[in-house]
């Protein structure tokens, strides 16, 4: 029994000292309410490859509310009762809107701050803040929005927006009113760019005045700024590409072959990234969504196109690697009279591979494709086709690269099973002949086409194309972007291919001979792709300089006709702009920039 009394007495003494003698705790809590103010970190900035600023932050003000503190119970207080009418006038909202916003905030939390009105413009902020003391429970919280000094690369940079309910549920980091990357690199590097939120706990008296930090800031946490990001993109080249693609529908993708970094990533039509910032974001987003030209789609990765003749590079490489043809192989061509695929170019039978590339001879590549999948060493056309598909995928087709590019599509290389089903198991090289010239079921994204150009430029390998060049703090890039991808095709075949692609520019019958420059050795391949949406797509893949490639590029201009008419000159201008820094073909440049190629869809 003694121990019961002893412990009780000890407790009484301890409680007396804690509650009556020690004034420290009283001071910490007396008559004060605490306000948790989230300290938003500066979101990381984005630069281009040369350190030019592409995205930075601008301060905006969010009006926050703690619903419980808006209820004034003290009838003697000058703030009693809450002046709803005055408050609505101040903010220029009606009563219904006030009630609705308040309900939403209460639902979020009754005792913790929620956003009442986000991104109050700077002009309004000043005069609201001045009289805000009259409205208990309300206070401003500063945060930043994104600003894009150069109106380029909207699809790449992406945008940020308020978190959705689903996003909040998936990651507890986010609270209502927080911002999160919604598209582009804002989305793929959300974790790196956002940093870590901090917290400041301040005491607030009954008059809604801040009385300093709580407990000497023992609960405060400083925010950690987000990481800056350097993109592989060249802002000048990107801007140039967007100007070339104005009034055209399509895409340009340029890659640095040695690294896989994306130098230019154009999707046309595009939009001003600043439209998707601020309070009008929702409205602008709706407008862009409704636009029949679909400017929000990033055609560079979300567009799947038949690659047309640009795909002959792939067919040719695989045919050589499998030993089905040699650089000296000759296939007969009867021009328009060729069977089963006619040739759109009138030329004599190609005496060798390079000549066939220069003339973009359809029968030659159909025969090469047939020779590959019928090659006796595979034991049957289906086994042969499986080999062909595997090699195609090693060259980067039919699958996503999975680096840092959101909404990436994988294109399509049909499987053997697909054909088995389609033709009831009865099919052969003739059935699927269109694959040999990049038509039929085969689909590729402009990114994949640029990548094959880079792979040929590198003579046999590629680095998965990616947007980022480096993190501002030197964090190493994810392994997927720095892993060298081997294609399983020998270098000697690439050398043959390269020579062939060079003749496209400098050969007497080269499809892009009009765009040859004297001092920059370009290699390329035109493509004119039939498609179900109307006129042929104009395609071109290229790289330069031939011996030390600095840039590999793919251009597609939808429904504009021959590859040599639009895509090839645009690609060539891009190459010149990047390597020379300026363009010495002003007439060509003018013609391309002013050209309007918008095919009206009949629907």
């Amino acid at each position, binding site marked *: 029994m003694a121990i*019961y009394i002893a412990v009780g007495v000890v407790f009484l003494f301890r409680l007396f000292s804690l*509650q*009556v003698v020690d004034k420290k705790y009283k001071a910490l809590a007396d008559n004060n309410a605490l306000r948790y103010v989230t300290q938003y970190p500066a979101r990381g900035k984005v630069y281009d490859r040369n350190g030019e600023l592409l995205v930075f932050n601008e301060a905006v003000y969010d009006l926050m509310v703690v619903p419980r503190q808006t209820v004034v119970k003290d009838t003697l207080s000058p703030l009693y009762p809450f002046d709803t009418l005055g408050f609505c006038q101040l903010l220029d909202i009606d009563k219904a809107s006030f009630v609705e916003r308040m309900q939403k905030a209460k639902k979020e939390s009754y005792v913790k701050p929620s956003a009442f009105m986000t991104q109050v413009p700077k002009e309004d902020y000043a005069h609201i803040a001045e009289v805000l003391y009259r409205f208990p429970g309300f206070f401003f919280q500063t945060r930043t929005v994104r600003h894009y000094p150069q109106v380029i690369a909207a699809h790449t940079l992406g945008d940020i927006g308020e978190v959705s309910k689903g996003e909040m549920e998936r990651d507890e980091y986010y609270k209502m009113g927080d911002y999160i990357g919604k598209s582009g690199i804002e989305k793929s590097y959300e974790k790196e760019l956002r940093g870590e939120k901090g917290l400041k706990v301040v005491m607030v008296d009954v008059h809604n005045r801040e009385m300093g930090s709580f407990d000497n800031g023992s609960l405060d946490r400083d925010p950690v700024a987000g990481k800056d990001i350097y993109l592989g993109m060249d802002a000048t080249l990107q801007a140039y590409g967007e100007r070339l693609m104005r009034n055209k529908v399509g895409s340009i993708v340029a890659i640095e072959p040695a690294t896989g970094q994306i130098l230019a990533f154009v999707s046309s039509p595009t939009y001003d990234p600043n439209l998707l910032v601020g309070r009008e974001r929702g409205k602008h987003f709706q407008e862009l969504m409704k636009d029949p030209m679909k400017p929000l789609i990033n055609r560079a990765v979300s567009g799947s196109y038949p690659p047309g003749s640009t795909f002959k590079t792939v067919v040719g490489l695989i045919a050589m690697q499998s030993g089905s043809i040699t650089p000296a192989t000759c296939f007969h061509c009867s021009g328009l009279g060729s069977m089963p695929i006619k040739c759109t170019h009138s030329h004599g039978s190609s005496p060798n591979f390079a000549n066939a590339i220069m003339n973009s001879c359809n029968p030659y590549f159909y025969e090469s494709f047939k020779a590959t999948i019928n090659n006796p060493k595979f034991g049957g056309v289906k086994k042969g086709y499986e080999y062909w598909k595997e090699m195609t995928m090693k060259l980067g087709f039919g699958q996503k690269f999975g680096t840092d590019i959101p909404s990436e599509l994988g294109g399509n290389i049909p499987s053997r099973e697909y054909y088995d089903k389609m033709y009831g198991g009865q099919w052969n090289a003739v059935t699927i002949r269109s694959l040999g010239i990049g038509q039929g079921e085969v689909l590729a994204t402009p990114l994949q086409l640029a990548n094959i150009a880079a792979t040929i430029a590198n003579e046999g390998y590629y680095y998965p194309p990616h947007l980022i060049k480096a993190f501002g703090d030197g964090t190493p890039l994810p392994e997927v972007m720095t892993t060298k991808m081997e294609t399983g095709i020998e270098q000697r075949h690439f050398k043959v291919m390269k020579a062939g692609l060079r003749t496209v520019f400098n050969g007497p019958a080269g499809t892009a001979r009009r765009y040859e420059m004297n001092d920059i050795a370009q290699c390329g391949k035109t493509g004119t792709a039939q498609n179900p949406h109307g006129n042929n797509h104009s395609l071109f893949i290229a790289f330069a300089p031939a011996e030390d490639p600095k840039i590999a590029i793919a251009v597609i201009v939808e429904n504009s006709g021959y590859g040599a008419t639009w895509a090839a000159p645009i690609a060539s201008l891009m190459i010149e702009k990047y390597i020379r820094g300026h363009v010495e073909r002003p007439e060509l440049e003018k013609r391309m920039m002013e050209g309007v190629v918008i095919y009206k869809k009949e629907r």
Partner: protein
Amino acid sequence: MNERNKIIGKIDWLTVLIYLALVMVGWFSIFSAKYDEMHPNIFDLSQVYGKQLIWIGASLLAGFVVLLIDAKFFNVFSLWVYVVVLVALFFVLVYGKATKGAVSWIDLGAGVKFQPSEFAKMATALALAGYLDRLDVDLGKLKNRLAVYAIVLTPMALVLLQNDTGSALVFVSFVFVFYREGLPGAGLVMLAGAVAALLFVLTLVWSQKVMYIVLGSLMALTLLFQILFTKRRHILSAVAVFVVMFGFVFSVDYAFDNILQEHQRNRILVLLGQLDDPKGVGYNVHQSKIAIGSGGLQGKGFLQGTQTKFDFVPEQHTDFIFCTVGEEGGFKGTAAVVLLYMALLIRLVALAERQRSTFSRVYGYGIAGIIFVHFAINIGMTIGVVPVIGIPLPFLSYGGSSMLAFSIMLAIFVKQDANRLNIL
């Protein structure tokens, strides 16, 4: 009718009044801790305070039923109650639900969960009382002593396996019963326990090296004293005691680092002031002390607490309910609650002493010990003199199993006491 009147006249109303006072303090504190202006009605059954009212009602009903049952029933069926609870504990281990790291709940469906460990304490007290009441049991016999240990240690081990260290610790309270019933060595065990606790704390605060020096000097002094001033020298036993103490100190670091779990280590270090981390592991205690300390002498008044309203103190309505009492009731409130507990404990011991049967006496001491350990650990934790151990404050904390178990436990004893004169 006559029979019931007799019971009402004979029960110890002082105990019942203290019980009702504590329950009311608890209910109002839970209301205040969880008060929400959208649900301002204390009878709102959708809120925890409304639910607590249901549990209080259920407990009063259960207590009343207990008072109507024949007093001998509990002695006769004590073993069966004990067995049923052991089975339930075992069942929890296999099928139980984990809450905050401890697997101690059985989901009865319809949102009702049941925590057998709360009932295990009472069942153990009953079983112990029932066993010691048997005429052939003599604590001088080794066989009987082993049986007594088994009765206490079996449920304790099962609760420990549920990872519910706090509830397991409560079983230590039966050492008071052993002491009262003259179990040989019980006093020595208590003394050794106290010395061990002291050595443990000092080792963590001062480090092993310092402790070796301190113990070494103490041993030298003791031996010197014995040689110089006493005739009956117990040099060998003194040396043996010190060797054991050295061994204990030696093993403290190992035990601390390897046997305790990280959160337990941290809680102990925070308590000893070895770890200052008010934002991290020390958060609960820091906030709890602010809440209680800010109450002052008078308290801030019912529903006027600021610390409690912001969910500063986690587990405000369960394990940390005493914070609300401290903040809103001030020292007057906390002193009243502590005095109520002291009064209850003293009254229970006094009642136990006046029992004629061994069963009632042992049971009385048993439940007094249980309530005491809960009281000491829980309040000690909220004011930062005991490490954070999650066990409820009897009659105050929110929780159906705890409220029911403690109420029935107390009611059984009140019934035994009312019936004491019928025992020859």
